[in-house]
């Protein structure tokens, strides 16, 4: 019997045991970065997930775990891809003791569902998701913090307990459902941001925050990038940390008719008197080249939704550098590259739309700037051939050998998302 016949037979067995909801042929829309899988498995629970992963590993099937499919474009194109393991059916709240400020959910639970459940208790999920369809497991596996990182902190710090199914079918738990814990090695940190290459998250306990009583969104227009950066520096020096702060080139931001200036929004969260006082201080501190306006809540909320929403462009990426240096990168980008700048966090998102034939030159130009400044590099979207020629995660880090050994320790046969994460893992 050929390998293919063996696979088909096993899939038929899984279908017979678990039903059509759990096993199906892949379709075009299941492709991951140009690689089309043959099948999709959708386990209903952790035990089923264990069996599926064990089978895939033993039979050398390369899989990509997927959640809400909102970040399928993250990473390098897979080296191999035989099937998807979708966590869509493993959704739901397992435990929500509101008084503990924790919530435990199955990994396939969407950010929207968590947000709705916690809102009833006056609490907030820390996932700060770009899309309410994104799942807790997917967000943590990718590990990119949201736009309100100054308020929520790093995404990697939000997972209090994780359950992970490894490629050999073992389930392991790390951490606990408590807000403070130093019991054993902090494996949660390894799993968050590992892009599913060390195991598949099946359940997570998240830290929650009380929802602040007041929120104010300020709209800012500045004549020059430097004014925007000066404002951010002034706020940092004054200890007036906003929950989020984003500046953008006008074409990246909400339509601002008649304006060619740098525009931005600042989110302030806290008690009513605090928020009102900080808003006044920001107005006082703003350089003369910046105009500030308090937005109506629904308008402010619309801004953030718009900024968070991913847009398809020929090229896009994220750069990271110290807050005092990130603004200079924005000014150096080619003039037709659009950007959004998060000066408090030292993050600069950039994007460019145009013909594929010109994309390579733009990519080289942006990359040269990143290299010159030693900026962190993540390529988010690019034509497939360009992705293939570049590691989307940038140069290999000096720790690659340790990272490779970790990968080998947890997924020795390299069947979990092979090739998708850092090259050389």
């Amino acid at each position, binding site marked *: 019997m050929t390998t293919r016949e063996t696979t088909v037979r096993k899939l038929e067995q899984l279908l017979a045991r678990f039903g059509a909801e759990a096993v199906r042929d892949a379709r075009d829309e299941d492709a991951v970065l140009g690689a089309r899988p043959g099948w999709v498995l959708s386990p209903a629970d952790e035990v089923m997930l264990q069996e599926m992963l064990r089978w895939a590993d033993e039979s050398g099937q390369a899989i990509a775990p997927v959640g809400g499919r909102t970040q399928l474009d993250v990473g390098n194109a897979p080296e191999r891809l035989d099937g998807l393991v979708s966590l869509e059916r493993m959704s739901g709240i397992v435990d929500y003791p509101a008084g503990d400020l924790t919530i435990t959910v199955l990994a396939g639970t969407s950010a929207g569902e968590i947000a709705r459940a916690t809102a009833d208790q006056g609490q907030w999920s820390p996932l700060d998701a770009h899309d309410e369809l994104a799942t807790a497991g997917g967000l943590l596996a990718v590990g990119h913090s949201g736009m309100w990182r100054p308020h929520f902190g*790093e995404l990697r710090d939000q997972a209090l307990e994780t359950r992970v199914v490894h490629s050999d079918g073992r389930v392991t738990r790390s951490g606990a459902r408590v807000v403070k*814990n130093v019991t054993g090695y902090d494996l949660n940190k390894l799993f968050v941001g590992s892009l599913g290459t060390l195991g598949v998250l099946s359940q997570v306990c998240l830290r929650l925050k009380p929802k602040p009583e007041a929120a104010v969104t300020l709209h800012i227009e500045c004549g020059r990038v430097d004014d925007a950066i000066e404002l951010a520096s002034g706020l940092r020096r004054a200890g007036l940390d906003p929950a989020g702060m984003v500046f953008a080139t006008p074409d990246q931001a909400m339509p601002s008719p008649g304006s060619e200036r740098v525009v931005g929004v600042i989110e302030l969260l806290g008690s009513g008197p605090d928020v009102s006082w900080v808003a006044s201080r920001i107005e006082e501190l703003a350089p003369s080249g910046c105009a500030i306006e308090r937005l109506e809540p629904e308008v402010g909320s619309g801004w953030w939704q718009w900024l968070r929403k991913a847009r398809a462009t020929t090229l896009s990426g994220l750069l990271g550098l110290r807050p005092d240096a990130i603004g200079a990168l924005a000014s150096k980008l080619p003039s037709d590259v659009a950007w959004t700048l998060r000066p408090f966090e030292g993050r600069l998102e950039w994007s460019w739309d145009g013909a594929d034939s010109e994309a390579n030159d733009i990519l080289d130009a942006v990359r040269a700037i990143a290299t010159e400044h030693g900026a962190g590099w993540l390529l988010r979207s690019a034509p497939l051939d360009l992705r293939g020629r570049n590691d989307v995660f940038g140069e290999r880090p000096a720790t690659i050998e340790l990272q490779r050994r970790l990968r080998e320790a947890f997924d020795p046969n390299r069947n979990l998302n092979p090739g998708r994460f850092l090259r050389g893992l």
Partner: protein
Amino acid sequence: MSAFDAVIATLKKQLGEAAVLSSPSELIVYECDAVTMHRRTPLAVVLPNSTGEVAVAVKACHDHQVPFVPRGAGTGLSGGAVPISDAILIETSRMRRVLELDFENRFARVEAGLVNVEVSKACEHARLHYAPDPSSQTVCTVGGNVAENSGGPHCLKYGATTNHILALRVVLPNGEVIDLGREDEWQHGYDLRGAFIGSEGTLGIATEITVRLVPTPPAIRTMLFPFPELDASCEAVGAIIRAGIVPAALEILDQNTIEAVEASPHFRAGYPTDAAAVLLVELDGLEAGIESQVESVTSLCRSHGALEVHRAQTAQERAALWRGRKGAFGAMGRLAPDLFVQDVVVPRTRLPEIIRDVVDIGAQFGLRVSNVFHAGDGNLHPNITYDRRDEDEVARVRKAGSAIIRRCLEVGGTLSGEHGIGLDKAEYMSLLFTSDDLESMARLREVFNPGELCNPGKILPSGGGCFDRAHARLAAQEKA
């Protein structure tokens, strides 16, 4: 010449005689950390001055296959800096330079041996500080804090050490020097920085540490609420959290602790000795909104039975209220020659029932248990005072400690909130984790520390991966 003698001779030659202690009278002070139950004198203590010298020391141990144990100031509370067998101790206490202060980007790069509180002192003029503040912060080192992922009273709002470490320079157990993390928090691949923090010196030795600095809040209000019942103080904590208020600190001291503190000339804080418990609340933030929070907290405490409220009016009064809390462990030295500090965590909502159980367990074993704890985090510190010359009492202390742990685990708690596992609790790990869980942890350790020369025998139960044996050993030990 034994391998140890060879290492000691090599290091004396390479680092100088003054950097290597090897006479019994010099070594005796290194026989334990702050948990005096675990003692073993190292064969030598190396006191390097730089990352390069740490690397030389580690490389020498690695080349001769000699176990070594990292140590900061020795204030650890889990036996983490105590060897389990013949070993060389590598102490970073001479490495205490501030290497870089960057107020614009809010970080400080310091050597591992710098004392915790010195970081904040170095940047207080810029109205910034380093948030993790373990009670031993005037003595403990930043390197030790990284190893233990130390906490402190202000963890409730600001998080523990792991939330405040941006980057690390580490000497791996083979002597290689690597950098983990970046000051801009960019994560490039797996979060090795995060995995290293709290690894209790078993994955290598951090030598240079880049810490996050946070703005010092302009408004601080510190209040003390005496309660007639310990339970009521715990209930008040739950009410404050449920109201959506996150104070900077929420600390409870029970009557036994109050008595010890007030009897101490060094730590006396003016706590009312007739109260069953006091709740120390610190709120911080902006002047604009802080008074409304003070009113809410005061009202919630009163509605839960608080007898009165003491508000610190001056910096001196604030320091006095904290002096009792931070000096509580020291004050217990007056009660008995020895102190066993337990460190466990429960989900916050289970606090009232667990505190009742802890009191009952103390009574059951005829022991004096004094509770001082980070109530907002659900992090308990039952302190048992005893005399280690009394073998029967020592046995009862162990049994009571074990009973407290088991009860906390029953309600979904965990073994340690900030002191670590070390030697003290390694054998309990199999009560909380499955053999597969522990195997995953062992795999991480194996990647960094393949020969287990670096701080062997800590965190994971002994037995080379056979965790069921550790479980059986624990049961036998308790039966005895």
